């Protein structure tokens, strides 16, 4: 077994990418993710790989687009305002069906917002981000260790489906240190990248073209249908979630992801002592969303569901779609960098379920 070491979330992301065979990193400084770039700047040149600080987030994502098109594993990292700038490029990457991993260490918004932890980019990440009919896989780790595991998994999923994958943390996960280990991974059987613009090199007759332009409506629709079929496949195969304390009948079910889910687990324990049984569904993939887990709990929860977020009500839309009117849905959120305590969450839940029993 690999030794456990203490690592900052942001640095662990870099190391995980290196372990996953990431060949190029392109980024731009922005708090609270800058340590990812700094880590890559230290490590990548020493192992003969590429680190480049771009002139903007826009340029960085387009460098990713170029490198991904050339068939190498490539990473970029940013935080909320920077991801908005990258949205154009992400749309092109999805349209051209290229694999890459994008890190978003979320900070409060809108606009310049703040630099403290938030989850207010949920809708941006899960509903497309840029223009057009596309999706990207969104992983939401809840610990530094899970960040490591999901960054590595992200590269595999990206290559498997030729799709951008976002790993979405927050300022807290990026800045905190926790013990991590870099385990030996069972890699997937991945398709070859025979579409890449490597140059023909005497191996191909026909040139490869990386492109997202389809001027004929019939062709663009056909392309979109192909993308949608791929997204259905991802929905069928790649949903990840954790169900905590969900055995039997419960008083209420919390929906929470990332750092918030940890705080909620503490609230669950507090409420347990007061005789209130609370389940927790933690989506690990935000898209595809684990709707089935919510469907499963619909008949087993007395007071329905509560979405707890570091945002003003974003994931609740997916919870509502999954529950589809079968149970009441409540909400508790903090934003702008404010982080709730377990007691705060417990009090909100007590108010819903009617106090201690």
């Amino acid at each position: 077994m690999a030794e456990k070491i203490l690592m900052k979330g942001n640095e662990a992301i870099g190391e995980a990418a290196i372990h996953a065979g990431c060949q190029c990193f392109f980024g731009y400084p922005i708090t609270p993710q800058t340590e990812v770039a700094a880590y890559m700047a230290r490590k990548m040149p020493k192992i003969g790989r590429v680190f480049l600080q771009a002139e903007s987030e826009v340029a960085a994502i387009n460098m990713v687009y170029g490198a991904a098109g050339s068939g190498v594993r490539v990473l970029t990292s940013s935080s909320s305002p920077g991801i908005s700038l990258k949205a154009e490029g992400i749309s092109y990457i999805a349209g051209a069906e290229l694999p890459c991993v994008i890190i978003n260490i979320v900070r409060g918004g809108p606009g310049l917002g703040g630099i403290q932890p938030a989850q207010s980019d949920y809708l941006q990440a899960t509903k497309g981000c840029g223009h057009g009919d596309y999706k990207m896989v969104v992983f939401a780790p809840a610990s530094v260790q899970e960040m490591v595991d999901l960054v590595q998994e992200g590269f595999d999923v990206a290559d498997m489906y030729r799709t951008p994958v976002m790993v979405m943390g927050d300022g807290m996960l990026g800045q905190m240190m926790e013990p991590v280990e870099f385990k030996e991974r069972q890699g997937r059987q991945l398709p070859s990248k025979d579409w890449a613009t490597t140059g023909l090199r005497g191996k191909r007759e026909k040139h490869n073209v990386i492109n997202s332009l389809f001027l004929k409506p019939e062709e663009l629709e056909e392309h979109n249908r192909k993308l949608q079929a791929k997204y259905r496949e991802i929905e069928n195969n790649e949903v990840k979630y954790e169900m905590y304390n969900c055995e039997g009948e419960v008083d209420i079910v919390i929906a929470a992801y990332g750092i918030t889910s940890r705080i909620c687990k503490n609230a669950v324990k507090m409420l347990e002592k007061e005789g209130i049984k609370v389940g927790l569904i933690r989506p690990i993939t935000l898209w595809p969303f684990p709707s089935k887990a919510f469907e499963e709990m619909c008949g087993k929860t007395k007071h329905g569901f509560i979405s707890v977020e570091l945002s003003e009500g974003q994931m609740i839309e997916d919870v509502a779609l999954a529950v589809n009117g079968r149970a009441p849905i409540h909400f508790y959120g903090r934003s702008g960098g404010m982080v709730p305590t377990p007691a705060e969450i417990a009090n909100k839940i007590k108010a819903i379920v009617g106090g201690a029993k």
Partner: protein
Amino acid sequence: MAHQEIIFAGFGGQGILSMGKFLAYAGLDEGLNVSWFPSYGPEMRGGTSNCSVIIDEDPIGSPLVVDASTVVVMNRPSLDKFESHVVPGGLLIIDSDLVNREPERTDIDIIKIPAQTAAEEVGSKKIANMVLLGALVERTKIVPMEALLHALKAHGKEQFYELNKKALEKGAEYARK
């Protein structure tokens, strides 16, 4: 049950973040769950610095400490900001060389250490943080002193090890008083 939530606070350059890291490493070596979370952003450059460390037998929720079992302060603004965060019955450790007021709380355990003076006696003012950390470990027993020494040896600069060790012992003496 081992469970401690600690805030270290002071000026940048006093070794606030590193005392938290050494303690977290000692906890890790003891097989406990640990987290370390720094203040980040513009306030880093404004001069003040703090970090939260949690050591727990159970999985850790939020790494940000709000209700601290122990607070260690190395300047006046930190005392002003964090005195109220100590839970009743908790511990407040103050570098009395740098904090020019008395704490107001009466419901907590307070250790005042002239850490700058004590560190200078040992060899250097720069290791005042270790004096305070020594007092913390001695009083709370959150990790054995041996585990902390081991963490220092494994993750600190070797040339400072002996000096740091003396500083920790000095702090521990204050905690026993």
